[in-house]
């Protein structure tokens, strides 16, 4: 089970890199468009539309990583003062809510995709993109998010039944500012080549 979560994390991290690269690529296209427009008064067109797709696909694939890294915001004012066992119960409840949200979103996303697919809907733009193409990638990201949420809930419930409240907190508890900071510093060290 823990290995499965490790695998999901690795895949989600790769998904986030892919998403980040996609955002950067879209940024480059948008910037090129601005420069061409200002310098030569020509436009490559469609950069707006492409950047919209980039945002949708990249964020859908990053939802799962944010979940695994416990980055989805929770108000922990009361949570923080509860005993560990009660807090673990709230953690599981929060993850259950996330599962509901993710599945609902994936399902409704699927309906949007299915409709575009059957109607052969195209964007009313210059590019005339068949909408089902970007929507398929988007729904795939949402589906992955739902899958990871279910996996985490399952694991958390198992830990809770074993009475491992600390394990639940490590898996899906809210993040403290200290954790955020430690990560921020670690990332800066990595970026600078091992703290040199």
């Amino acid at each position: 089970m823990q290995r499965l979560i490790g695998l999901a994390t690795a895949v989600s991290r790769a998904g986030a890199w892919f998403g980040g690269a996609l955002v950067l690529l879209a940024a480059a296209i948008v910037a090129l468009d601005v420069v061409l427009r200002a310098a030569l008064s020509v436009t490559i067109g469609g950069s707006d539309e492409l950047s919209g797709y980039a945002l949708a696909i990249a964020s859908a694939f990053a939802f799962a990583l944010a979940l695994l890294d416990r980055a989805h915001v929770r108000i922990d004012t009361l949570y923080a003062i509860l005993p560990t066992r009660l807090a673990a119960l709230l953690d599981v409840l929060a993850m259950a809510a996330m599962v509901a949200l993710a599945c609902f979103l994936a399902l409704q996303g699927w309906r949007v995709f299915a409709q575009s697919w059957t109607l052969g809907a195209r964007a009313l733009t210059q590019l005339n993109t068949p909408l089902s193409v970007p929507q398929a990638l988007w729904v795939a990201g949402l589906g992955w998010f739902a899958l990871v949420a279910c996996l985490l809930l399952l694991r958390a419930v198992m830990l809770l039944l074993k009475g491992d409240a600390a394990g639940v907190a490590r898996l899906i508890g809210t993040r403290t500012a200290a954790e955020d900071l430690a990560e921020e510093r670690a990332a800066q060290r990595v970026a600078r080549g091992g703290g040199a």
Partner: protein
Amino acid sequence: MIAVAIGILVGLLVLSLPVAAALMGLGLTLDILYSFLPLRRVLGDTAWGVSTDVVLFSIPLFVMLGEVMLRSGIAERMYDAMARWLGWLPGGLMHANIGTCTMFAAISGSSVATAATIGTVAVGQIRAQGYNERLFLGTIAAGGTLGILIPPSIPLIIYAALTDTSIPQLYLAGILPGLILALLFMLTVVLACVVRPGWGGRRPRVTWAERRAALPDLLPPFAIFVAVIGSIYAGLATPTESAALGVLAALALSWRLKALSLAMLRAVFEGTMRTTAMIMLILIAAYFLNFIIGSIGLGRMVTEAIAALGLTPMQTVIAIVLFYFVLGMFMETLSMMVATVPLVMPVVLSLGLDPVWFGVLMMLLLETALITPPVGFNLFVVQGVRERGPVKDVILGAAPFVGTLLVMIALLIAFPGIALTLPQALR
């Protein structure tokens, strides 16, 4: 209906449900209880619409811009340059804390990143130079809040998206209050150090030659700010396009500083997407809730209920400020704005208040929320950088700056022109 809605929202949030799930849960419940047609079927289309909104594409771009700048090592150089230029004032390096935060605010939207970076450089100086520890920590916590007021600010983009307000107008409106607030923060330090000279520590001795030598380190962030903001007002680019230009400029800069590497890019991508995912999920839920609230007429009911109280516009504004001040003590800032704007905005508009002006007021209230206990994110981050002593020191050190923020809020209410002069002049 109002009481039910607020009750459900508070209940879900107190249970520490993820904010996105709480907003979505409220939307669904309202839909089931009060709507004739099942409105929840629009969620898919709402989600796709929000996710492909070109305006919102500026969010990952500005997050990425900040991440790149942060990992390029420019912050340390900026701090050193600021120390040389502002260190002579009573309060010494504390002005460098605020000054660097101000400049950093102009290129980054992240308070954690700003406070972490500047805190790490600065905290070692407290004992070495004999500063009052509390006030010193307070300047870092308070300076870090400037990021959400001075453009390009991510909370400002989110406000613009939720309320359908112009981003260029909001950016212009944020500049002057941001600078005035930074000056007021510095004035607070000067006053404190004039009253208690012992708090000021040793001031660095710097020659003019050393000051001039440090100028090139202040130039790149300034250039990026001008490129991003300038390209919007020169009519060359939309806010999203200017953000894209900013990202490429930042990458070019970090390449020149020899900070660009594959490991660095991976860290940038991961950080960018994690933050973006968190914001986008909340936004999808918020748009959905916004739609439900509009469809079942809840916004109008709140407006009528407020009107029935018979308050003058000024009294209503003061009530709104008090509401956010108290709420901000207990709630994380982004969630606070997203959860309340759908209900508060109809009231604001019905009073005939300018949504651009209110946006700036909202940012000031969010800044206050970042440094008011018991839940003030910047307080915790600064305490984390410090790694010793009680968090009480940071809370007390930030307290004078809460006062400064309240003064700024009063000024903005008394003289709306502080925010509105620039946008009106360039309209």
